[in-house]
């Protein structure tokens, strides 16, 4: 456990020092401000209310989870595996007294930490923005809905990240993995519309599972089914990704 911890802290430090994480937070902030400006424009231009202060973070999440967050997660996940292999820095950790399973798990845990922090930052910023621009409509239940929505979104994003990490261990080129991830993401999004009856099986459809958590009558069985599908994806791609990581000769 000590060595897993060491590898996890190292990965977080590297992420932070690369400044990529800070850039991502800044982009997230710009997105939120842009979103709020759009809402204001709709309100003043068309005379419609737009969204309340507690709805605004959920509106941001619905856009964020389907666009920028998967993109950022892909960037970080690819960097942590393919990037290190191609820059030859992977052997720094691989020659230390830590098993490949622990190192692989620590790297995935670091990606999960990044996803969680990114979601929390967006949650806090969007809630504050919503509150500043529309202070009248804030309430406790609304806040709980926001927190739950953002927290449960970590799971589908991590299922997606583990799939990307699998491809990061298949290909040696970061750009190839990045574009493959984008193409697969768009393809599965399109398939959701072509085959709506099977859409719940596609990993991209799970990104909106937070909606199930905040619906009026919480559908436990549906939540459980989607959770099991995501776990299935996670276990399969974790195992396949680790197999490739472990067998890789440097």
């Amino acid at each position, binding site marked *: 456990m*000590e*060595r897993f*911890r*060491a*590898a996890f*802290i*190292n990965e977080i*430090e*590297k992420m932070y*020092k*690369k*400044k990529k994480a800070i850039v991502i937070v800044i982009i997230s902030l710009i997105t939120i401000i842009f979103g709020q400006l759009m809402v204001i424009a709709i309100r003043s231009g068309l005379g419609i209310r737009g969204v309340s202060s507690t709805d605004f973070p959920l509106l941001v999440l619905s856009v964020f989870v389907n666009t920028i967050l998967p993109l950022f997660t892909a960037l970080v996940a690819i960097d942590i595996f393919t990037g290190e292999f191609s820059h*030859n*820095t992977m*052997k*720094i950790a*691989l*020659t*230390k*007294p*830590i*098993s*490949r399973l622990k190192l692989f798990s620590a790297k995935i845990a670091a990606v999960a930490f990044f996803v969680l922090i990114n979601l929390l930052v967006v949650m806090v910023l969007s809630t504050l923005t919503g509150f500043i621009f529309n202070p009248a409509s804030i309430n406790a239940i609304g806040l709980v809905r926001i927190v739950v929505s953002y927290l449960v979104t970590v799971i589908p994003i991590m299922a997606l990240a583990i799939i990307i990490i699998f491809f990061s261990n298949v290909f040696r080129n970061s750009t190839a993995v990045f574009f493959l991830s984008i193409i697969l993401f768009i393809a599965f999004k399109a398939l959701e519309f072509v085959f709506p009856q099977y859409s719940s099986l596609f990993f991209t459809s799970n990104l909106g599972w937070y909606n199930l958590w905040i619906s009026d009558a919480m559908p436990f069985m549906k939540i459980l089914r989607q959770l099991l599908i995501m776990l299935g994806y996670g276990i399969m791609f974790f195992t396949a990704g680790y197999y490739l990581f472990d*067998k890789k*000769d*440097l």
Partner: protein
Amino acid sequence: MEKVLEINGLTKMYKNGRGIWDISLDIYRGDIFGFLGPNGAGKTTAMKIMTGLMKADRGDVYIFGHSVSSDFEKAMEKVGCIIETAESYPYLTAYENLRQVSRYYSNVDEKRIDEVLEITGIHRYKNEKVRNFSLGMKQRLGIASVILSKPELVILDEPLNGLDVEGMVEVRKLIKHLAETEKTTFFISSHLIHDVELTCNRVGIIFGGRILNVDYTENILNNYASLENYFISEVDRNGKI
């Protein structure tokens, strides 16, 4: 004598037909073992397998009695190594790079980090990003990270690459000092015969992926004018040139 490193029938074949065949070696505590061979002889392949960077087709490596393939963490606990090139994270400072390494060991504190930076002569660049370092400075940082945890076995692949004459002399001195004072065992690969002659007390010759012979430097120099003569004679005797 305590066996520190045991290599048993190590074989690795590449698709191009090159590789290493049935390499077996025993390294004992206090040895400064020179792994001598020309470019492409299989030195790095053997060392990559020894440090877990590569999997062997056959055979295994035991470090302090622990198998590298099945008990990697235990095997690497008291090992420091540089394989091919001394890598470091360019966006971190020298200090941060060493702190990354230190987290894997319980016996390394801030004082020890300063100590190794001092030993390798890069203390004044402690807080500089490694991307601004010259090749020689990166090599020194690599050596600093290797000795950071006071390892009992040090595996170095071409450790003098990129160093100037002063750096070479210092590293040679450091190797001898650690071997004498801390009984650190060294396994050093090199294609520089003179360098091996000056540094190592045991020499193994690898050629075409096979070990030709292993002997003590003292014995070799009693029978041959230089290590170079011995190397040529061994290669010739085995009908390779």
